[in-house]
């Protein structure tokens, strides 16, 4: 990276008349971090039958979160809307070329390459949730189970690309994108900010998600992740057979 490009990358942050303003509303941020937790948790618990209900619950939560995000992409605040960040291949190519040139285009919301990762993540999350539901409920065949696993690994790869992209553009643009996804704020011109954080909607999301988890916990055959009852039953069965 040349001296010139450093200067240009820093320019937006240093430009007169900018200050820290709200760019990501609360539902976008709560969605983002809940999705992170659900995908990571479901991925980690995928292999074990002991954690099967946790895996399934996190997967269904992921599906619900994505359904919400699609609606919020139509009705949310400025930078949450698909119309703000979904761009054609030409815009993606232009953005990537601007990076290669060392003069990265600045986008207050998602940049066109990041938008591509977001669409891929949303699409994969839908495919994974649907195939996971079908597998868990014995609808469809073995191929759906394979598809579920392939899609989940593909999503992990896109997550990797998304994280790499966020780190690289944070560095290129001299702005902390990870921090912005936490507090919602970026150093831009005040008129570029969004007016409301919609905290009530975010709080409602949290209530629905936690409520769903609580319901799943209550509905679990053994009263939760602990497998006391089935084990006790198995124990009794073994005992009957004089097996212990």
């Amino acid at each position, binding site marked *: 990276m040349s001296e010139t490009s450093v200067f240009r990358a820093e320019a937006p942050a240093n430009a007169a008349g900018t200050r820290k303003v709200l760019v990501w509303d609360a539902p976008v941020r709560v969605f983002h971090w809940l999705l992170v937790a659900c995908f990571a948790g479901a991925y980690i618990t995928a*292999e074990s039958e002991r954690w099967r209900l946790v895996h*399934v619950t996190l997967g269904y939560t992921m599906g619900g979160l994505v359904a919400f995000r699609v609606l919020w992409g139509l009705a949310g605040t400025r930078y949450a809307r698909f119309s703000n960040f*979904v761009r054609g291949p030409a815009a993606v190519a232009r953005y990537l070329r601007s990076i290669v040139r060392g003069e990265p285009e600045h986008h207050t919301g998602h940049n066109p390459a990041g938008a591509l990762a977001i669409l891929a993540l949303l699409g994969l999350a839908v*495919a994974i949730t649907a195939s996971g539901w079908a597998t868990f409920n014995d609808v469809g065949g073995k191929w759906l189970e394979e598809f579920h696993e392939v899609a989940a690994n593909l999503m992990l790869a896109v997550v990797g690309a998304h994280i790499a992209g966020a780190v690289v553009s944070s560095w290129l643009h001299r702005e902390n994108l990870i921090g912005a996804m936490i507090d919602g704020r970026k150093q831009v011109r005040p008129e570029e900010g969004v007016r409301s954080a919609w905290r009530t909607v975010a709080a409602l999301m949290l209530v629905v998600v936690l409520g769903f988890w609580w319901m799943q916990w209550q509905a679990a055959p053994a009263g939760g992740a602990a497998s006391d009852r089935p084990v006790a039953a*198995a124990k009794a069965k073994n005992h009957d057979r004089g*097996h212990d």
Partner: protein
Amino acid sequence: MNQSTITRCVAALLLGGAVLATGAQAVAPAEILAGYSAQAGAPPSPARGQQLFNTRHGGEWSCASCHGAAPTQAGKHASTGKAIGALAPAFNAERFTDLARTDKWFRRNCNDVMGRECTYAEKADVLSWLLALKP
């Protein structure tokens, strides 16, 4: 991103899944058993297999916790309560006909029951017992 690009991505994903799913050719359970025995370097023992299947190896579960002590009929998942199809091939023609799938589920289930993967000898023992179960 325009619609045709999305359509193409979805098609590629579906195609990839389909290729992966049909890529595995069906084999006979006996062939899988022969492979495990060869890797183990010793003939399998159905009695040892039955013992392994019904024992809790210091953990909470045995294989029988989900598959039932008589895996000639449907079992019941120990944490989800879902029905699990019979495991013995004579009672369920789908079982042990795909090596990759067999390996995957041995890996997962042995980890759940024994806290480690099963050896080839252990897998051969269990499979030889399951194959010995006849109507």
